[in-house]
């Protein structure tokens, strides 16, 4: 006689079927392409990969990508922390408008985001003449790439922190203030420590996107090799030139950066059980 099934448990065939479906789907759309990237990259051996990655243009692209992330991520971390603090802990008119505004980069196509910057800062744009007069280059230069990346990765930290802070409420802050703590002291000693894991999590997601952003950056970059090419753009150029080994080698490097970010995120979740289960 078989053991009676737990009352809320699904029958075996259903469990197997659903699990197989999910795993099969994951393998097809996630694992297989990822594997293909590495297989293609190493088609002509490790030497070719090293060659492609150490090519001066590739190194310039890697440097630019790291620089962009190094500026965009801290900026959005600080902004996200401020915005979520204001939204979650305070009541003010226009609050729901601000929340919508923060979500805007998620709802707008990255290409449109790029075009906005071209329209505003480009040669024929609103500030075009003023910028030329002062010899400041934004579009088709590094500042434009950083601006576009900041725009696209704007919501990650704030979106992570707002629900967390709202859930925590304001009782601890009130307690601190009732004991004589100033607003700033309360923020650093009470609010910030309570969201530090969520903040790190948001920063990691923001970083992953900042390094991988293609659309918006593609519009403002101008694709000048060795100057305004980020890693994703460099991959595209190599691919369009039928340099498959080169394209896939840089892509593999980009994948490794993404995987490293995800591993870090996994480690974070192990270190901090409270973050677990609140996935995306």
């Amino acid at each position, binding site marked *: 006689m078989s053991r009676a099934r737990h009352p809320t448990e699904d029958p075996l065939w259903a469990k197997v079927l659903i699990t197989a479906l999910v795993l099969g789907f994951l393998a097809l759309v996630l694992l297989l392409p990822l594997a293909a990237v590495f297989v293609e990259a190493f088609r002509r051996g490790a030497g070719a990969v090293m060659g492609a990655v150490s090519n001066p243009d590739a190194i310039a692209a890697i440097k630019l990508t790291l620089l962009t992330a190094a500026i965009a991520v801290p900026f959005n971390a600080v902004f996200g922390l401020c915005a979520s603090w204001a939204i979650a802990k305070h009541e003010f008119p226009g609050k729901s408008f601000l929340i919508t505004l923060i979500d805007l980069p998620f709802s707008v196509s990255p290409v449109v985001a790029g075009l906005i910057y071209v329209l505003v800062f480009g040669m024929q744009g609103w500030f075009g003449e003023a910028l030329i007069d002062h010899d400041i280059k934004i579009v088709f230069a590094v500042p434009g790439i950083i601006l576009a990346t900041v725009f696209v990765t704007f919501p990650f930290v704030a979106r992570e922190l707002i629900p967390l802070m709202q859930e925590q409420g304001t009782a601890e802050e009130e*307690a601190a203030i009732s004991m004589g703590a100033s607003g700033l002291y309360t923020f650093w000693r009470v609010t910030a420590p309570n969201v530090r894991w969520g903040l790190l999590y948001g920063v990691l997601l923001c970083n992953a996107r900042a390094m991988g952003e293609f659309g918006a950056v593609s519009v403002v970059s101008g694709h000048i090799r060795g100057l305004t090419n980020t890693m994703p753009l460099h991959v595209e150029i190599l691919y369009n030139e039928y340099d498959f080994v080169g394209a896939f080698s840089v892509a593999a490097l980009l994948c490794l950066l993404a995987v490293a970010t995800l591993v870090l995120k996994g480690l974070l979740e192990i270190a901090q059980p409270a973050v677990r289960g609140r996935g995306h």
Partner: protein
Amino acid sequence: MTISIRSVDKRFGRYPALNDVSLEIADGELLALLGPSGSGKTTLLRTIAGLEFPDAGQVLFGGEDVTYASAAKRRVGFVFQQYALFKHMTVAKNVAFGLDVRKGREKPSKADITKRVDELLKLVELDGLGGRYPSQLSGGQRQRVALSRALAVSPSVLLLDEPFGALDATVRKSLRKELRRIHDATGVTTIFVTHDQEEAMGLADRVAILNAGAIEQVGTPDEVHDSPATAFVCGFVGDANRIEGLVAAGVFNGGGVKLPAKGVADGPACAFVRPYDLALGGANAFAATLQRVSVQGAVAHLDVTTSAGAAIEAVVARAEASNLSVGQPLKLSTAKAHIFPV
């Protein structure tokens, strides 16, 4: 520290939370703010604390106007409903917080802070647990930490919002005694909010009963129980049978019950009779039929219906109910009824 609240109004949007509330609290008093949810009791407590500013009216601490002074300036100790302990700090750090935030000359030395924390943890019987984190404590222990944290700043007034709400019955009972002990030991003026009348009546020197943003009555537990000022107080404090009827020429008549109603204006009225104020037999008795008897310890609860069909509960000594049987006719009388015109 005496506290005076004078004609305080507070609205949240279009919803009035406090409506012309005035209250005097004596130095060293233990006062309960009792009322159903939404009665404004927590808003009143937060207004006293300086966590809310009133729209109109005044709050005075020892004669000084503190209506718009910050909580820190008032030197209040506030115990929050869910304790609001700092999760990432140890118990000792939590208790020391109010001293750690001080600046310059006001800030005690490290050794003094440690000493004070140890004293307080001893007072709430948590000595030795200073190194733990709040998540490693039971509900009752967290409550004690919150209490000692509030006391650390030597507050002029200790304010507690539903201090025992989140605890189970046994812990609640022992902590109630503890709060009384700590209040008596420190002598600090204490105000606590509760919706539990038993808690308010058992612990406080005086009880202020709130309903719909206004104070219905303030008095000692005996006063509000024995001489309720309004129908609301009568129904809220202690058990009471509520009978609808009419008063004519000093006599209440309703639900098959006649009661003397001296001084009550003629017209529709509502009579409250406490179950334990009813007796079997006696003068001016009314007729009823016994529906159910349930014995609880030394007393028996009788569920009866009057000749007009009103359901009434009476509590009598167990011995008196021993030879009663369900369905039999009874005579009940009361020497004490509270009758309010409606």
